[in-house]
């Protein structure tokens, strides 16, 4: 008998509502359908009636988590049309902000992943390490989120010597914690049992769904906009593009954690090489033309197309965020999965979409039998059973070390 489990669309904690309908037979998921549009704000239409400067504030609000990726992609597109040469210091500042964002975004994700599999130690510690990063954002930009750092032709605020010193200190503290998280996650038998081989995406399916970012890289597709289509100062900085071949949740986790270490490297290099000088050039007008701006957001390639008619407002702005291509790949990843793994598979792409708390299992005859909390509980119970079988993770020396 096939049952349908709706997940979503609203969740009070996460910023994007979305509805997933899981079709299940017994304990096995046979299909998934996603419905979006609950929060369609018409940003592309609004952009046609705003000046370029106003547009930056608008596109920053596409996403609250990767809130600097969209302004950077938009700047890349407009600066291409206007033929702007970015001041060197501004290019390095963009790298610092973008990589800090990747760090806080990946830590947020890691914490949520821990929560969904019932590993509260991981959840709490990942978020504890994320907090100082948000404080840094506040000291540099004035805001913990939605930093408003980008402007066409440069950045709005400089990074002072004092902020730079604080940043270095925070990175020195964060780096060993990342190594610990990595080692702890890699060696833990329970996490291995929950994440390895779960929600597998084949490279062939990754190509078919045109997925991007950590999800694509976890299937062995070696792509990263920062390296392939360098913007800001990425062309002169040294970093590795992390790939994995398994395509399962463990692989996406490993890619994200290793990427954080690369981000630390990138920020240090940018701070070291940043010359003294202007942080922006004036861009008096944007000529008629069109431009494509790319950016490697924490979740993957972010795409902006801008067409200018020579006025101070764009003729057309097209935005494609990474989740738009990553989410449909659930169809390939969910088939054959256990219901208890559904929460973590949904979470593995992007916490924005794992709106699992409003979910209900509906019998074919109608009437809810199970709600969203129950689904997370199912996932956590599975971990608890594994812990009983394999030994308590919190008692292992690595996790004790974390405390």
């Amino acid at each position: 008998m096939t049952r349908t489990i709706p997940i979503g669309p609203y969740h009070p904690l996460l910023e994007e509502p979305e509805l997933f309908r899981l079709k299940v037979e017994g304990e096995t998921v046979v299909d998934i359908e996603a419905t979006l549009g609950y929060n369609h704000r018409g940003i592309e239409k609004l952009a046609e009636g705003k000046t370029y400067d106003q547009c930056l504030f608008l596109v920053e609000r596409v996403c609250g988590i990767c809130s600097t990726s969209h302004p950077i992609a938009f700047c890349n597109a407009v600066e291409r049309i206007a033929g702007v040469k970015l001041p060197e210091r501004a290019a390095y500042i963009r790298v610092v902000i973008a990589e800090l964002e990747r760090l806080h975004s990946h830590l947020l994700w890691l914490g949520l992943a821990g929560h969904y599999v019932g590993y509260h130690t991981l959840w709490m510690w990942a978020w504890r390490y994320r907090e100082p990063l948000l404080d840094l954002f506040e000291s540099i930009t004035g805001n913990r989120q939605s930093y408003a750092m980008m402007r066409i032709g440069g950045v709005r605020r400089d990074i002072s010597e004092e902020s730079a010193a604080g940043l270095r200190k925070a990175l020195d503290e964060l780096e060993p914690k990342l190594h610990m998280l990595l080692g702890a996650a890699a060696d833990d038998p329970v996490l291995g049992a929950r994440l390895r081989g779960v929600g597998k995406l084949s490279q062939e399916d990754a190509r078919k769904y045109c997925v991007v970012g950590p999800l694509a890289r976890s299937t062995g597709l070696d792509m990263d906009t920062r390296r392939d289509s360098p913007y800001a100062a990425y062309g002169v900085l040294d970093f590795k593009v992390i790939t994995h071949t398994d395509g399962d949740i463990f692989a996406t986790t490993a890619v994200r954690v290793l990427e954080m270490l690369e981000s630390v490297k990138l920020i240090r290099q940018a701070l070291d090489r940043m010359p003294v000088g202007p942080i922006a050039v004036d861009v008096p007008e944007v000529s008629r033309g069109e431009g494509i701006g790319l950016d490697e957001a924490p979740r993957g390639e972010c795409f902006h197309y801008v067409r200018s008619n020579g006025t101070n407002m764009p003729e057309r702005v097209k935005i494609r965020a990474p989740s738009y291509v990553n989410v449909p790949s659930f169809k390939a990843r969910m088939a054959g999965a256990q219901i208890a793994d559904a929460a973590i598979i949904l979470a593995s792409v992007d916490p924005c979409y794992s709106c699992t708390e409003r979910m209900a299992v509906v019998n074919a005859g109608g009437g809810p039998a199970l709600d969203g909390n129950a689904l997370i509980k199912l996932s956590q119970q599975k971990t608890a059973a594994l812990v009983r079988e394999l030994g308590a993770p919190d008692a292992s020396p690595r996790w004790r070390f974390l405390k």
Partner: protein
Amino acid sequence: MADSKALTVEKLMAALDGKYLAVNQQSPSRVSIDVGRRDAREAVLRLLALPGARLITVTGVDTPPGIELLYHVTFQGTGLVCTVQTLLPKPQPSIESLATELPAAEWIEREVHELLGVEFRGHPDLRHLVLADDWPDAVHPLRKALGSAQAREGAA
């Protein structure tokens, strides 16, 4: 991807086998190719058959003569973005669907269909994607004739 690194505009042209109207290279990494509307789907599929090719998305633009469709294709490891551009005349812009060949085109074709009123022939499921289920069929918010206040209300 060794082969895709060696991709040049000449190779893209060769893959299209003469099925294009004009080529415009804005920079080493940005190329746009004008294609007749009957050849557009075939041209995009030929580019997507090249090594490392990936469809980024499709942009629709409302212009006075018709709806312009821009298929953005990139090639892994190159940073090259090739845009296949075609014009669909009003009042009934229509083109063959890519979604039958590529699942990645399903959502964006649904979106262009509802926001700009382009019909994608052969698309398996043209229900609303981002607009509400009860949004009026004849109102397309990204058409220029519709002001942003009207677009909010869904009024024609």
